[in-house]
Structures are given as structure tokens and as C-alpha cells.
């Protein structure tokens, strides 16, 4: 972070905005909940300085984006004054530095204007001036976008903490307000979306793993359904190793999440603990392992070429974000208490197990794709496989030196295709076994008993299952 010395600041306008950009990114490295109120206090200064700079720059198109942001920010500040929230206190050093840099840049641009002839906006401007202004505008809106995101992520954590306190029927600290913090989060989120649209951000929520707040109940179900449909749709198109790898990796994550959420449900007595412990969990572990093997065998053949069908990438981003907001806290798993606080565990378990029910079919379709003569891998990846001994020497199957030099897509070497086909057969076998073990149909106790902690009467719990309607036989169980 640059500590501006306003009286002796020799930075150019471009350097000042660049410093603001870097400082705003630094702010995002940390989004501690303690920062939220300080950032909300400083947010208005950032927008004010950004709007001043924006209006000082040549703009023949009169883009209204910054005006909209300024209006929203002014409204939020009025609310803050009226409600006395977040109240007096320190601002955020990063955001204050950003505001100072942008304010200084606005002064410099305005001074140039004052020093020259009055600007005639209807007169044609030199092309380099317009290009510079366009670049500066992009840089400036990017800063606003990043700052809005940093305020938002801090507020997410703050709101989550306040919700946790209220859920425990404890009183909030003096000066804290769940309602006002949540409202501020929503209003800054609107600014983030407007600025994000200007800089052309794609899949902003999914990419940033945005989460917290109450998890939207239907998000997971919707994301999983979309993923299932899109995976099949993509596999029906041109067969590429990158698409297949992405599908395999996401299937593994869904399986892992089913294990995490299912374990919480079982431990809390919402599903049959014995069934989960002795049958479902080992089946899910095996399924993760075999999907992992497919990925490990496929990955060296892609090297770094990960371009996937954009629709598949969008669905993957969304399902990843929907899972992570339930299962993770930072780099580790969320605690069972956190998972329960975030989501209807029983509903999420059911959604995940429904998603797993299509594993067998998906593995068959992936197998068909791998068997397709048009299925290609990168030439360097194939060469690496040969070098590593995965393919017998001399068995290069159409891979020429030119292919390797230009790293062209080439048909997968036959021995590698055989390995992948065997992997996928294994996935199918394990998925069938998992289905037979009930991994796609959790035994839900809540329909029979109130949710209580496991009592140790596991045999009795199982015996009660006979009163339920008989479930349809799983794959591999038909007689």
C-alpha cells in the first residue's frame, strides 16, 4: 500500500490510478469480519473520489455508469447518517489510500483543464486523448469493482458472525446491527454488479466463490440439475479431453460433498448412522478414488490446455460455488455446526444423492466419448505419456514430430485409450455398488423420528425401516 504524501506527490494520473488498483487488490487479500464497518465508513470516500475523477476526464459518450454508482453510494451514506450505523470510528487504511490516490488524480486532471482552454465537449478530441481516457476509465471502474467486492466480502463475514450470535439467542455488541449490516451488503452488492458489468465480468458470483449469508435453499439443487444437463449436452458435442477432465473433476467434488454433508446428517441423527458409516461412506470414498484415477490418467495428456465448453465452465463454476459455500470455511472443511447453520442438511443430502444417481449413466457416456475416434489430446501431453512409459515406445499412433512441435490436438494413443476405458469401467462398477449401498438414496430418519442425537439404538432404527414403502431396487440389485 502506498502512503500518499499529498504535498509532495509526483505521481502521474495513470500512476495514481494504478496505485489505487494495486491497493484495492491488497485489500482483498484480507476480508476479516472486523474490517467490515471500517470499510463501510471509507466506501463513500472511494466512490466520491472516483466520481470526481470520472467527471474530470473527457467523455464524449456520457456513460452513466459512474453516476448510477454515485447515486447509490450517496443513498447509502444518507442511510448511515440517519441510522448512526456503522457510526464513528476508524476507516479502512487500504480504502482510504485508494480514495486519496483517486482524489489526487482528479485534482491533476482538473488542474490541466483549468490551465488550458475551456474544454469544448462537442469538438473532436485527439484520438490518443480518447484512448487514454478510455484506458483510465477502465482502470478506474476496475478499482471501484474491486473495492466494492472487498467491502462486500468483509460484510459477508460480519453478517455471518452476527447471524450466528443471534441464532444462539445472544445479544449483539453495542453498535452492531444485523439488519443494517445486511442492508448495506445488499446495496454495495448492487454497486459491485454495476461496476462488474462495465468491466465485462463473466460469471462474477461463481468465479469469486461468493457465499455466506443464508445459503439459498434451491441453489444447490438448481446448480446440480444444471450441471447434469450441461455435462450430458457437452459430451454430445465435439469430444475433447479438457471437457471430459472438467466433468470428471466436478463429479469427484460432488461425491466428496455428498460425503461431507451426509456425514453431518448422519451424526445429527437425521439419517441412518449405521447405514452411512458402514455402507454409504465407504462407497462414496471408493467413488472419489476411481474418479480421481480417471483424472490422474487424463491430466498429463492435456498439459495446460484447459479450454472447455463455456457453458460447461459456467455450470461447473456454479456447482463448485454452491458446494463450497456449504462444505468449506477457508481452506478447510466447515465444522458440522457451521454446515447446519448454513443449510437444510437433509435437503442438501437428498439433492447430492439425487445427483449421484446419474453417475452410472454419466460414466457410460464419458466411456463412449473416450472410445470416439475423434477424441483428441494435446500432442505434447501424449508425448509426455510416452516418455513417462505410459505408452509402449514406438507406439505413437499418428503422432509426428511436427504434431509435437506445434502441440497439435491428435487422436489419443490407443494404449492410453485402453487405460482410460478400464478406469471408466471401474467407475461404473463402483457407482453401481454405491447405488446398491444406498449412496444415492439416504435413509432419512426424520420422516420417522424427530431429529435427535444418535442414541445408540442403531439396530432398532434399522428395524423401523421396514415400515417404510419399499424402495425400488438399485442398479445391480435387480433379480
Amino acid at each position, binding site marked *: 500500500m502506498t502512503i500518499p504524501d499529498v504535498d509532495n506527490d509526483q505521481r502521474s494520473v*495513470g500512476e495514481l490510478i*494504478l496505485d489505487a*488498483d*494495486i491497493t484495492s*487488490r491488497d485489500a*482483498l*487479500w*484480507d*476480508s476479516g469480519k472486523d474490517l467490515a464497518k471500517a470499510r463501510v465508513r471509507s466506501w463513500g470516500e472511494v466512490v466520491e473520489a472516483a466520481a470526481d475523477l470520472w467527471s474530470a476526464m473527457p467523455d464524449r459518450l456520457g456513460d452513466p455508469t459512474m453516476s448510477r454508482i454515485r447515486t447509490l453510494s450517496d443513498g447509502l451514506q444518507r442511510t448511515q447518517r440517519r441510522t448512526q450505523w456503522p457510526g464513528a470510528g476508524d476507516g479502512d487504511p487500504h480504502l482510504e489510500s485508494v480514495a486519496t490516490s483517486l482524489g489526487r488524480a482528479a485534482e491533476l486532471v482538473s488542474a490541466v483543464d483549468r490551465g488550458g482552454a475551456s474544454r469544448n465537449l462537442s469538438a473532436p478530441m485527439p484520438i490518443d486523448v480518447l484512448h487514454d481516457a*478510455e*484506458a483510465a476509465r*477502465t*482502470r478506474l471502474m*476496475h478499482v471501484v*469493482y*474491486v473495492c466494492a*467486492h472487498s467491502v462486500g*466480502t468483509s460484510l459477508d463475514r460480519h453478517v455471518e458472525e452476527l447471524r450466528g450470535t443471534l441464532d444462539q439467542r445472544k445479544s449483539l455488541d453495542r453498535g452492531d446491527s444485523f439488519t443494517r449490516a445486511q442492508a448495506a451488503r445488499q446495496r454495495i452488492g448492487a454497486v459491485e454488479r454495476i461496476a*462488474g458489468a462495465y*468491466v*465485462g*465480468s*463473466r*460469471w*462474477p458470483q461463481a*468465479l*469469486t*466463490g461468493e457465499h455466506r449469508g443464508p445459503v439459498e435453499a434451491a441453489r444447490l439443487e438448481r446448480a446440480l440439475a444444471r450441471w447434469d444437463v450441461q455435462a450430458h449436452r457437452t459430451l454430445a458435442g465435439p469430444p475433447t479431453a*479438457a471437457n471430459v477432465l*472438467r466433468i470428471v*473433476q466436478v463429479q469427484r*467434488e460432488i461425491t*466428496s460433498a455428498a460425503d461431507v454433508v451426509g456425514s453431518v446428517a448422519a451424526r445429527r441423527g437425521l439419517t441412518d448412522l449405521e447405514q452411512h458409516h458402514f455402507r454409504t461412506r465407504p462407497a462414496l470414498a471408493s467413488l*472419489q478414488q476411481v474418479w*480421481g484415477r480417471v*483424472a*490422474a490418467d487424463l*491430466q498429463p495428456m492435456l*498439459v*495446460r*490446455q*484447459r*479450454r*472447455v465448453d*463455456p457453458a460447461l*465452465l459456467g455450470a*461447473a*463454476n456454479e456447482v*463448485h460455488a454452491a*458446494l*463450497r459455500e456449504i462444505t*468449506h470455511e*477457508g*481452506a*478447510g472443511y466447515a465444522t458440522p455446526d457451521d454446515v447446519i447453520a448454513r443449510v437444510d442438511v437433509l435437503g442438501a443430502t437428498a439433492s447430492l444423492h439425487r445427483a449421484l444417481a446419474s453417475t452410472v449413466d454419466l460414466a457410460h457416456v464419458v466411456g463412449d466419448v473416450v472410445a470416439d475416434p475423434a477424441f483428441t489430446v*494435446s500432442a*505434447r*501431453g501424449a508425448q509426455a505419456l510416452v516418455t513417462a512409459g505410459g505408452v509402449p515406445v514406438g507406439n505413437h499412433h499418428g503422432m509426428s514430430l511436427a504434431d509435437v512441435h506445434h*502441440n*497439435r490436438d491428435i487422436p489419443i494413443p490407443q494404449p492410453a485409450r485402453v487405460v482410460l476405458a478400464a478406469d471408466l469401467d471401474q467407475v461404473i462398477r463402483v457407482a453401481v455398488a454405491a447405488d446398491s449401498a444406498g449412496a444415492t438414496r439416504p435413509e432419512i430418519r426424520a420422516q420417522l423420528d424427530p431429529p435427535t442425537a444418535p442414541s445408540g439404538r442403531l439396530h432398532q432404527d434399522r428395524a423401523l425401516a421396514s415400515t417404510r414403502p419399499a424402495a425400488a431396487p438399485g442398479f445391480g440389485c435387480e433379480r
Partner: protein
Amino acid sequence: MIGQFTTQPAIESWREAIALLVEAATRGFTEAEANPALYSTALWADLLASSAIDLLPANQDHLLDGVVLDRSYEDLDMVGLIRAAETTTRRHPIEQFPVGASGVIVGLLDLVRESRP
């Protein structure tokens, strides 16, 4: 910001960031064998790599495999490589990257924060 990279150094830095993310994901998948919770973070890095690749000119994917990473990265773990990828994107002002780069960069910053042990 327009739909393409405006300088050659910018596109090279972008490719380097992609290579670092792919390497981070690869190491993360390996680290996840001992600590399964890391799988999600590794996948996140890989998804971001795909999102970043999506901004590259379509006919230049093959150049990614030619990116040679500095030897100083060899000892880094997944988190270190993710941080290195984020730092790489700071070499150029945002307008030298194509439309959509802001979203990838913010996603990368979130990944840096969320991947901390």
C-alpha cells in the same frame, strides 16, 4: 478495455498466470490425497485457469504448453503458486487485458484469501 490483449508482455503474463494456476491445481490435487479438504481449492484454481484461458485468442492455446515457469516456483505448494499467479496479474494495468479479466482477477484474489491455511 477491449476484447483482446493490447500488448505482447500482457498476454505473456496472462499465460504465465494460467500456467501457475494449472500447476497450483495439479499440486493441490496431489496434496488433497493427504488432506481431502484441499480438493475443492485445487478445483477452484483449475476452474479459474479455464476461465483465464477463455480470454486468450482461441488459436493460441498450444502456446500455453510452451510457457516455462521460473525454477523459483518449483518449491512452492498450492497456496504459494496461487499467490504467485495473482502477483503475475499485477504486472500490467487492467486495460491491457481483455474484457472479463477483472472478474478473473477478483476471483483469483478471493482464491488467495480463501486458500490460506
